[in-house]
C-alpha cells in the first residue's frame, strides 16, 4: 500500500535575482515496508525535501499524498491538521538524536504516546516493549546525557516507533556514530521496515550505509538525478 506520493514537488526560496530553486519537480512514491535512501552532497536539497515530507515546509508547487489523502496541492495544506499527522503517522530520527534532555529514556519514549492520549498501564507496557525491542530496557531510567551515542540513537528509534508510525523519516541517523554503531542503527531500520511494515526514508551522504535499501534516490541541485532499486544496487 502506498504511504507517500510526491508529484512535481518544487521549492523556491526568495525571488528575483535572489531566487534559489532548492527542489525542482521531485517525484517520489513510497509504500509500506519500503526502505528508501535519499543520497546527495551538501546543498543538493536533501534536507529541504525532508522538511517538505515532514510537512513543516510549504512546497512552492506540487502535490503530496499521504496515506491515501491529498494533503498538499496548489492551494496549500487545505485545512489538514499537519501536526496531528506528524504525531500519529510519522516518526522522526535525527542526526543528533534530539532526545529531550530532561526526560529519562522511558519518558522520552512515553512522550509521543502521551501526545496521542495513550496513558497509564497501556502506555507503560508499550514503552517497555519498545525498549526491549531496541535492547535498551536496562537504561530506562537514565537521562540521555548518561548513555552512549549509539544507545541514544536506539532510544530515538524507539521514540519514532512509539505510535506505530506509517512513515519513519531519518535525517543522517548515522552521522554522529562510528561505522559499527552506524551499521547497527541501519540494521534496526531495516528490521523496522520489514517487521513493522513502516516505510522508512533515510537521508544520508554515506553510501556505505545504504546496502539492502529498496530504493535509492540521488539528488543534485534540487533534482533527482539517479534512481536505483534493490535489484540494481550493488
Amino acid at each position, binding site marked *: 500500500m502506498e504511504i507517500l506520493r510526491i508529484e512535481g514537488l518544487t521549492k523556491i526560496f526568495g525571488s528575483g535575482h535572489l531566487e534559489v530553486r532548492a527542489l525542482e519537480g521531485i517525484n517520489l512514491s513510497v509504500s509500506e515496508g519500503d526502505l528508501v535512501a535519499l543520497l546527495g552532497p551538501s546543498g543538493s536539497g536533501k534536507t529541504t525535501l525532508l522538511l517538505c515530507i515532514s510537512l513543516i515546509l510549504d512546497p512552492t508547487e506540487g502535490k503530496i499524498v499521504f496515506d491515501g489523502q491529498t494533503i498538499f496541492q496548489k492551494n496549500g495544506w487545505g485545512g489538514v491538521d499537519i501536526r496531528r499527522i506528524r504525531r500519529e503517522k510519522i516518526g522522526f530520527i535525527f542526526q543528533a538524536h*534530539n532526545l529531550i534532555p530532561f526526560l529519562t529514556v522511558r519518558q522520552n519514549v512515553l512522550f509521543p504516546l502521551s501526545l496521542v492520549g495513550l496513558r497509564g498501564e497501556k502506555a507503560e507496557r508499550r514503552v517497555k516493549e519498545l525498549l526491549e525491542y531496541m535492547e535498551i530496557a536496562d537504561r530506562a531510567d537514565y537521562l540521555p546525557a548518561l548513555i552512549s551515542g549509539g544507545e541514544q540513537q536506539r532510544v530515538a528509534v524507539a521514540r519514532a516507533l512509539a505510535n506505530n508510525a506509517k512513515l519513519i523519516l531519518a535525517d543522517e541517523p548515522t552521522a554522529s556514530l562510528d561505522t559499527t554503531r552506524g551499521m547497527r542503527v541501519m540494521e534496526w531500520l531495516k528490521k523496522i521496515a520489514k517487521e513493522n511494515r513502516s516505510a522508512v526514508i533515510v537521508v544520508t551522504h554515506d553510501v556505505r550505509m545504504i546496502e539492502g535499501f529498496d530504493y535509492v534516490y540521488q539528488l543534485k541541485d534540487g533534482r533527482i538525478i539517479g534512481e536505483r532499486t534493490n535489484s540494481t544496487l550493488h
Partner: protein
Amino acid sequence: MDLAVYDLKLHRGRFMATVIGVGLLFTIVLAMNGLYRGNIYEGLALINITNPDLWVVERYRGGPFNEQSTLPEFYHYSVKAIPGVEKASPFIYYAVERPISGKSRHFSIIGYDVFSGLGGPQKIYAGMKIEQAHYEMVAHPKLGVRLGDRVPLGLHTYTVVGLTREAVSSDGQPLVYLSLPDAQEVLYQKDNEEVRNKRERLLRTLSGQGNLSPYQSEKLLPQLQSDTHIINAILVRLKPGVNRVDVARGIEKWLYLSAFSTEEELQLMLKGRLASMTKQLLLFRTLLLIISVIIASLVIYTFTIEKIQSIAVMKLIGAPNWVIIRMVMEQSLLLTIGAFLFGLALIHNTYQLFPRTLLIAPGDDLITFIVAFAGGILASILGLWQALKTQPAMALGGQ
C-alpha cells in the same frame, strides 16, 4: 506528562537558587507592605490611643504631632472655661536623645496631667500607671528598661513603674510617659552651670543699661528667666451631648487657638508628615514588584531558550502548542509562586526583628500574591513568544 516539573527536577539547584533570589525580592516587597502599614499605624497610634474629643493647639498650627505647637501652660484653664468643656488637660510631646543604660537612645517623652487622666497610657501590661506627681515613668519596652529600673534623665532619676507597648512615636521610637512637670523639667531645665551663666549675663545686661540699680536688676531677673511652663497642646473632654464643632469654634473664636477633633488630627498626620513616606513606600514596593517580575521573566526566558532545541523536536513530532505553553507557563508560575511562598514564610518568621513596626496584613499578602501570580503569567510571555515562534524545522537543521 508534566514536562515543566521534569525539567525543573534536572535543574533543581538553579531553580532553587532562583526561587530564593526572587523570593528575597518578594520578602522585601512584603516587608515594604508591612512597613507601609506599620508607618501609618505608628504615625497614628498615639493619636488613636490618646483620643480626646478635641486637640487644642497654637493658632494656625497643625500640632502637636504634625507640626510644632507651643502654648503657655495656664491656657488650659481658659479652655476649661469654654462652655461645653468638661475637662481640659495640658499635654507635652517631644523627641529626645539621652543615654539609657549606657547607650544613647532616641525616644519621645509625653508629659501629661497624671491626675486628670487625659493623655496617659491606656493599657499597661506590667506595673501600673504614674500615680505620683514626680519621679515615676511608664516606658515602652523598646527603650530597653524593665520594671523597677531607675533611669536618670536630666537632673533627676525616674523609676519605671509601668510598661506599655500600645504605641510608639510617629517615627517609630519608644515612648516615655512622665508627669507634666517632670517632662517640662527634662525638656526645659538647664544645667546648673548654664543657669548661673545666664543669670550673670542678664544681670550684666540690665546693669549695663545704667537705668537700673543692681538691686532692681536682681529683682527683675526672675521675670526674664526662660519660662518652663510651656505645653504643646490641651486635651479636651466634652460634656455629654455637647456639639464638638460648636465648642471648637468657641475655642478658636474666643481664645485665638486651633481645635481639631481626633479624626481631623489623624487626617493632618496622613496628609502631612506621613504622606511623603507613605508615597515613598508605595513607590518602592511597586518598583520592587516590577523588578521581581522582570527578573522572573528573564529567568523563564533563559530556561526557555535553553530548551529551544527540545521545543523544536516536540513541535516536529507533533506536540500541540498547548503542551509547550503549559510547560513554559507552569515553570513561570512555579517559580513565582515558589518565590512568593519563600518570601511569605521568611517575612512571617522575621518581621519582629525589624527595627520599625511591620504590620503584616493578610489582605496585603493576598494582593501581593495576586500581583505575583499575574506577574508570573506576564513573565512567561517572553518565553512563550520565543517558544511559539520556534520552527520545528530547527530540529532537522533547518531554520
